[in-house]
């Protein structure tokens, strides 16, 4: 199977094309298509379809990525997992999640039956 196939492209979320439009009130989860490997300062995430390699540069961010699925929204996950929860820290982590969404490391949790083939 090739890399960068059309299937991988349709997996990109509409919001994620524009990082500032990342919907942090939605529920997200770590993608099943990635390998996540702990490193001394965080983790490496490799997307097997797009072959993109992303470095998560803090242990807290890794915990956040793992913990997203346990919360109803990315915002709630940040509140629960990230410390301190000041505005700057929240913003930084929302922006980090937006980058990860664009890279396909995290995906929205679809509750309805997907119409995408």
């Amino acid at each position: 199977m090739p890399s960068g196939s059309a299937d991988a492209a349709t997996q990109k979320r509409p919001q994620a094309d524009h990082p500032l439009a990342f919907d942090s009130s939605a529920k997200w989860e770590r993608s099943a298509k990635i390998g996540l490997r702990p490193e001394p300062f965080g983790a490496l995430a490799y997307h097997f379809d797009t072959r993109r390699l992303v470095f998560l540069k803090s242990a807290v961010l890794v915990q956040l990525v793992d913990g997203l699925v346990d919360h109803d929204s990315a915002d709630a996950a940040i509140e629960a997992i990230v410390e301190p929860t000041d505005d700057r820290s929240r913003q930084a982590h929302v922006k980090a999640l937006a980058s990860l969404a664009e890279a396909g490391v995290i995906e929205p949790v679809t509750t309805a039956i997907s119409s995408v083939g």
Partner: protein
Amino acid sequence: MTATQSSPLTLISKSASTKTQAVPPLVEQLKGGLDAPICLTWELTYACNLACVHCLSSSGRRDPKELTTAEALAVVDELADLQVFYVNLGGGEPMIRKDFLDIVDHAVSRNVGVKFSTNGYYIDKAAAERFAATDLLDIQISLDGFDAETNDAVRGKGSWEAARRAMDNLADANFGEFKISIVATRHNVDQLDDYKKMADEYGAQLRVTRLRPSGRGVDSYQDLRLTHPQQQQIFRWIMDHPDVLTGDSFFHLNALGKDTGETLPGLSMCGAGRIVCLIDPIGDVYACPFVIHDEFMAGNVRDTGGFASVWRESDLFQELREPGAAGACASCNAYDACGGGCMAAKFFTGIPLDGPDPDCALGHADEAVAAASAAGVVPQPSQDHSRRPVSLGAKPS
């Protein structure tokens, strides 16, 4: 936001909350080495049906000490356990191994991505169909000339045709995007636009990499290496074509961008022994595929502790993960851009490792290369599986 400059308490709480400020830049972390490679090259066999003049592994004859199927599958398991993300299979010609598909399938089943590098001879229609149906698989076809004459002069008569046939078979089987990989030489650097067009027509991804004086390349290097004007030409071409891959093999040319601040895409660092390495057909672990020499051998996967302990504990790799000194390049204002270039290129041209890259774009190595060559102090590779003396235009068997 309450950040002000006046309160020391605010300043302290800023540093505490941004723990990430303690994290060095990514490149610096990678230079110190990781607990496991990100990816690596694994040459499955020294056997090859071709006899390319510049073969970096001096391949041709199978080595009788080649890893067995069981040993190879155990290596796959080790790589999977280490979470190596993908393995780049090569050789020689990897498809010559009878257990090639077993190795590929096992890697894929263990979630280790596979790319294999091949001359394409054995990719007939059935193989193409099989590959199209295999997940996590990427294929890279080697080609070193846009036309048969240019290519076959380096790779042997009939090799261009075989590569094109393989590409056609992959396209017909709807494999999807495969890679076409060229080693840039003096004789094909003017063909880059043609190559790009060819790759675009196939829907394939073009890859252009650096010729190094490794393996049989030691002998053909002087004939095939780029001239200084050609280096400028290729630097510009790669900057103008950011969708063309290079394997980060041209970062020694970043010196050409020192005034404009342009750098080629990539990490611009040597990954050998730090984030990548080579496993050879008999299980020897080298810093990278371009330094098959005892000087750069870290151990063997058959040693107690296997690949993991070689990667983590070998003296060589620990040494490579120490910060390096700029040496003779310290006074050059391009050093930050080029990092002193490629250790393999220096070694096989007889230049000290803290000296300039033989292809230093600013010409700082030109005299040293000539002198080393004249004095006969150029090392030979430690493994030579060539089938016979190789000359330009040799016909493959």
